[in-house]
């Protein structure tokens, strides 16, 4: 059974990965040999300079999901490369490094730093970052998305993944812009801008006022976006949004995603990615499929 997939020129052993910001490689939970079973891992987004993140409360539970406003707490790209990357490299699983910045220039700078580093399989652009010229995020503007992708693509030596925001009128337009600017793949989707209110205190439950909704609640919207986009782009899609089990992952693959990423549900079942990997194999066997490409995009349209 062939379940390997390609992102740009990189071949990954299987289509299961994790969503940025949701995967803790905690020794208590995982042994390196288990993490190595995944197709790739994606650590939390890194920015040019260290960020301390947003004030608490940084998250709350909602129906079938959560809202978070972590604020990309991270040590900055230099510290990441110096101290985190070596440890991640040692696991021996392909590593997709997620980066974000406040300008195309900073994105380019970070991509160059990663060029000089070792042990990176691909770079993911977290485009849910402010767009200095406009009031919307980069990922909410086709031109801004294309500009960042084009400039990073010009310098990076890695396959480039553009991570899209679902907070848009037409995600297909943004996806097409990223594709034509040279993105090798798309990650879809990031969180939905959302909030929850403490009615006793009459204030937001989130320190940052608003946050991002993730988890099973958003899956039907994410699947629709992936399905719509897969029909229009040629590059592979890493599908995510509320995946908790094999069935959920299959929805994305059938809708047209080439890979699937478990996000929020890692917090509830850290073994979900491994269970899903087994589950996909079992489903293919049961349905007499020998190549994952028979599954990808197999929805009856």
């Amino acid at each position, binding site marked *: 059974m062939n379940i390997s997939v390609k992102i740009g020129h990189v071949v990954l052993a299987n289509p299961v990965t994790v969503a940025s*910001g*949701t*995967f*803790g490689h*905690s020794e*208590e*939970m995982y042994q390196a040999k288990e993490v190595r079973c995944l197709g790739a891992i994606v650590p*939390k987004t890194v920015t040019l300079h260290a960020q*301390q*993140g947003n*004030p*608490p*409360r*940084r*998250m*709350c*539970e*909602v*129906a*079938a*999901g*959560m809202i*978070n406003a*972590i604020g990309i*707490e991270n040590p900055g790209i230099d510290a990441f490369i110096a101290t985190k990357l070596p440890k991640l490299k040692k696991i021996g699983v392909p590593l997709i490094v997620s980066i974000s910045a406040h300008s195309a220039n900073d994105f380019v700078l970070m991509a160059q730093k990663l060029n000089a580093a070792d042990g990176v399989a691909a770079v993911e652009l977290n485009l849910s970052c402010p767009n200095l010229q406009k009031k919307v995020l980069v990922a909410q503007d086709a031109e801004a998305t294309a500009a960042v992708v084009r400039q990073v693509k010009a310098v990076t030596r890695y396959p480039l993944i553009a991570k899209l925001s679902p907070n848009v009128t037409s995600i297909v337009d943004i996806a097409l812009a990223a594709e034509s600017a040279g993105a090798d793949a798309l990650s879809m989707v990031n969180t939905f801008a959302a909030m929850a209110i403490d009615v006793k205190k009459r204030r937001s439950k989130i320190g940052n006022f608003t946050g991002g909704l993730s*988890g*099973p609640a958003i899956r039907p919207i994410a699947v629709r976006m992936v399905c719509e986009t897969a029909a229009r782009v040629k590059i592979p899609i890493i599908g995510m949004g509320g995946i908790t089990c094999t069935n959920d992952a299959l929805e994305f693959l059938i809708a047209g995603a080439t890979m699937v990423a478990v996000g*929020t549900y*890692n*917090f*509830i*079942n*850290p*073994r979900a990615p491994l269970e899903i990997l087994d589950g996909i194999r079992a489903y293919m066997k049961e349905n007499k499929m020998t190549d994952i490409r028979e599954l990808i995009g197999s929805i009856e349209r």
Partner: protein
Amino acid sequence: LKSYPVAALKQVSPVYFRLAFEAPGLARAVKPGQFIHIKVSDGFEPFFRRPFSVYRTQGGVVEIFFEPVGKGSRLLTSKKKGDTLDVLGPLGKRFTPPAAGVKQIVFIGGGIGAAPFMLFSDKIKSHKAEKLLLYGGRSKAHTFPMTEFKKNGVRVLTATDDGAVGVRGRVSELFKEISLLPSTMIYTCGPRPMMAAVQAFAKTHDLRGEASCEEVMACGLGACLGCSIPTVHGYRTVCHDGPVFGLNELVF
């Protein structure tokens, strides 16, 4: 991430329950102050796991001591022998064991916050220091069954809001009842206002101490960075950098 068989659920006071389950590996591994992260329902209601301190280990049995305050903890009150419990852990940073030279150990607990001190007092039974528990509860219903602490050689002083048990008022009313020593070590766990008072008290008397904090948790593993609280070093995760922090590190 393991499934353990439930051994027993017992209601021990009008508001408190004890839940025991068989988990020999966990029982051996867990240290005072560490917690476990329990998936309380089979589905998404509630969505997150729920963190609970380990109250006690006896043989291969692990116990938590809890108060049903919401959807998640209430679900635990319907567990019965033979059910299984989906548990992550032990997680988080332990209380630092008192050094040999410590002559007095003061546990200061508010409500359910006294839970981790049981395991702690079990583990330091042989330590020669004088041991005290200053305990604050809302009412009689919210006071711990204290005999087990006493068996561990811990002298218990209680304060309740209504004065039904012990002194009337906050746990801080009990501070004046103790004669401190220079080597006194304080361990506290409870509501934030209480711990803020303890911090101030320790500062005044120049005492060392540790505090165990609570925050809503998602992963419990230091992965999501969602349970961060402000400390003098910046934001730190309660689940991974804590729940036990140096008393002076906390910013209230």
